[in-house]
């Protein structure tokens, strides 16, 4: 079956058709052409597809589009402010927290959700926040540094 669903993505409302078995990740990428959300593993392990649904970071490869009908979504496309990198994105750039960039949208959304919940105080906490996402390039140290720097700026 196919049905229309309506979602709000980064503040803008969209209505489009979704087949029963279409995942939310594919809905964003193929129906709304919001291709910033990446798909690595499609079984919940890599975190590349992480987006924020009604305030919580979740795997968009493990949700069906139909389940998101009426939901408020945030994706990597909504992070930049007035065409400029936001604080977290800039910290990623400054700290070499990305190389090929494939994993980056997922990390940014996971960290965005975590920093809203409170400060990330030390390396151990930062690694905990990052542990649900996989990066094959950076070796994670740059990511740890970017998270700690942003947390300090936001929460001091």
């Amino acid at each position, binding site marked *: *079956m196919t049905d229309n669903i309506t979602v709000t993505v980064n503040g803008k409302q969209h209505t489009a058709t979704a087949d*029963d*078995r279409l*995942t939310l990740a*594919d809905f964003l990428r193929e129906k709304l052409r919001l291709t910033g959300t990446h798909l690595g*593993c*499609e*079984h*919940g392990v890599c*975190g590349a597809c*992480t987006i924020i649904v009604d305030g*919580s*970071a*979740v*795997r968009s*490869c*493990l*949700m*069906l589009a*139909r*389940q998101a009908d009426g939901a408020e979504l945030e994706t990597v496309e909504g992070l930049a402010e007035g065409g400029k990198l936001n604080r977290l994105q800039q910290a990623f750039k400054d700290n070499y927290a990305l190389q090929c960039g494939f994993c980056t949208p997922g990390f940014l959304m*996971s960290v965005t*959700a*975590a920093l809203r919940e409170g400060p990330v105080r030390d390396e151990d906490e930062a*690694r*905990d*926040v990052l*542990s*649900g996402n996989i990066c094959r390039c950076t070796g994670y140290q740059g990511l740890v540094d970017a998270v700690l720097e942003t947390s300090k700026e936001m929460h001091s």
Partner: protein
Amino acid sequence: MKPGRFTYHAPRSLDAALALLAEHGDEAKVLAGGQSLVPMLNFRLAQVDHLVDINRIGPEFAGPKVTGDTVTIPALVRQRVLERSAEVAAVLPVFAAALPQVAHPQIRNRGTVCGSCAHADPAAELPTVMSVVDSTFRIASARGTREVDAADFFQFHLTTALEPDELLTEVAIRVPQPGTRMAFKEFATRRGDFALVAVAASATVDESGTVTACRIAAAGVAPTPQRLHDAEAVVIGSTVDDEAIAAAEAAASAAVDPTGDIHATAEHRRRLTAVLVRRALAEIKGDQS
């Protein structure tokens, strides 16, 4: 890596969900958090004709309730919600200890407590905790309702007492008696991974510090959480002194018969069981003094 074809249903009440399960039974699956089922559908390890999404059956299923001597965890309580419930932590802190070790926050934001029990992975944390607390699994279908305890609920690897037309509506847990201490310990290779072995333990002590009741269960060593009755027996009547802990460690090691796989050999799992039993009991003892 895309699911096969199915018909998606989003019933708006428990009765509507049960009616769909009664109609489609064998060809249907319940969709809760989707954090185990959707990967299996994406891999096509599972194929269903009808998916009954219970996420819209009602807000009354979304929060844990603490009433009198019982904590109830209805079907839509996310793992992250239970992890952060101060009300539950006040009477059953073992959940706040175990839950951070279940997957990652992004998974726990969707994954449900009941879904983890219904999925019954042999290495999962929550079924292990449910095996040491006094838990009752409340099950409903269009045919009626019934209750089973943890020992009867977990039957085999990924197999529970649930029939295809049944829904686990909630898990009810009796608030432990005063003087009860619990601990949860696991070893996993990476943060957020399933445990190689996990151990949950509970001990109740009387005023003199003597243990009057004890339960210990291990995950990752058998098709279901395994109660370590011999280890429990040596702890009961002791003061959880070093001698009792050493005896429990030896009893645990003798009681398990794990299988080896690419993640760990059988001998490694056996050794981990003993070490984690020791750590759990040491924590229980430390809390007492």
